[in-house]
């Protein structure tokens, strides 16, 4: 977030007569509010949105369908991921059993597994969050 960016945002605010703009990038957020009468934008705050020590916002891996959750493939002995493990985008992280089908659950984004949000054998619904990643 540099002065040039701030000035661009301020110019946008003024040009389009907006009441406020919120802009977030790389963990830093700024909100500019237009002063109603004078038309001069006033910078209200520059606030980092993530807690110190973390670089990225948490993301969920959600169920692509509904069915019985298998953290471990039925024909294997180890779960696909563990808490603390690393996941890359496209990795298969679990399976959903729905009738005769076993559907793969793949991670859309990479990251570290912070939490496993559903249990082995649970009936999960469409789009239900299954893993929390960072």
């Amino acid at each position: 977030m540099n002065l040039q960016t701030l000035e661009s945002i301020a110019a946008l605010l003024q040009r389009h007569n907006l009441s406020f703009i919120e802009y977030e990038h790389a963990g830093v957020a700024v909100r500019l509010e237009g002063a109603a009468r004078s038309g001069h934008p006033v910078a209200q705050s520059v606030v980092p949105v993530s807690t110190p020590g973390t670089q990225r916002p948490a993301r969920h891996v959600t169920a692509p369908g509904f069915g019985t959750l298998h953290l471990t493939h039925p024909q294997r002995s180890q779960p696909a991921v563990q808490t603390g493990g690393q996941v890359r985008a496209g990795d298969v992280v679990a399976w959903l059993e729905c009738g005769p089908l076993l559907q793969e659950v793949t991670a859309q984004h990479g990251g570290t597994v912070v939490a496993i949000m559903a249990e082995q054998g649970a009936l999960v619904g469409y789009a239900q969050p299954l893993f929390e990643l960072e």
Partner: protein
Amino acid sequence: MTARAFDSVLIANRGEIALRILRAARDQGLRTVAIHSLADANLRHVQMADQSLCIGPASAAHSYLDIGRILQAAQLTRAQAIHPGYGFLAESAEFAAAVENAGLVFIGPTAASIRLMGDKVSAKQAMIASGVPCVPGSPAALPDDDEQVVQLGKACGYPLIVKAAGGGGGRGMRIVREAEQLLEAVAMTRQEAGRAFNNSQVYLERFLERPRHIEIQVLADTQGNAVWLGERDCSMQRRHQKVIEEAPAPGIDRNALISVGERCAAACRQTGYVGAGTFEFLYEDGEFFFIEMNTRVQVEHPVTEWVTGIDIVAEQLKIAAGQPLSFTQGDISLQGHAIECRINAEDPFSFQPSPGVVSAWIAPGGPGIRVDSHLYGGYGIPPHYDSLVAKFIAFGATRTQALERMRGALQDARLEGVKSNIPLHQLLMLEPGFVQGGVDIHHLERYLSSGRDIP
């Protein structure tokens, strides 16, 4: 048709009817399973169900209309019966058959009944065979011979409509008022039908200028018993959508209604119909004309429940479990009068849907007021489905009392954050034609296009 006791019901629907079904199932001690789309996770009945499962995205095609998903959900939740509600798959013979084939109980008629009544020609033929009066017309497609066509026109009576067999929804029709115009109209309609539907078959039906929409509610069990539960008048419609319904129908000869009602019950016995159903008629100049049968519970069922004291959805569950009807025709009598106003989240005069968050909802109440609604303060009405959000039903000893109570209810109700057609209903409860009663199916549209009272 497998009618057997079940311990659980999967509700394959949403909104107010899903809540209605849930209450009936719960009251009978049945476990309730609510399946829903991603957009419907916050539905009232989903919150209340013993178990809920999100089965797909907002799109109805991948949720409420997806037979495979619904049956998978039933298997995973161990539901033993499925209630389809109205709309969606309620009148899909394929769905009814699939439920039965999966070893589950379908709360409704057999797939064969749904198929028979879904085809307008076969439905009409079945009704004629059962002595139910139909719109007069040619019994099948018109022959090529002009002389025969003229005779058929004479038998049908004027004015009549020439209809394309492959048409529907108002397309492929031509009104003929004089016998001299018939042959030319038939020729033109045939030509247009051939081009538009690749099917130049046409048939004749009498055209009714100012009919009323009168329907008969029936309940039939698996043991050959069928009872008709009086009639409803649903003439207040806009673009074929009902806006206000009432029971009984004002100003119609009771004996004529009894005669038609008994024929509908007989038709159920003769065709092996099981469950709740409605026979729809056009009524003009003292005559009833069958147009179609709805093989499901309907939106407007509460007005019949009020005047007969019968819980139609509860009866659907009992019938599906193989129980005989607990009442006979002799036990049914209509008491008082009930009016229902359909409350939609839409602009009251442009009819544009108005989804969004309900910032305030206070339902009306008091004696003779029933509200069927899934609304609650803070609920977000999704844009993906129809706009019906509540039904206000007012009951009184007389039609006048029902009207007075409905006016009060419409005044008491608060629905904020979205637009609704409450202001339109307020006008209609004072509109002289409706207040007098007995208006035809074009009355509401004439009123709306007159500009009178409309801001």
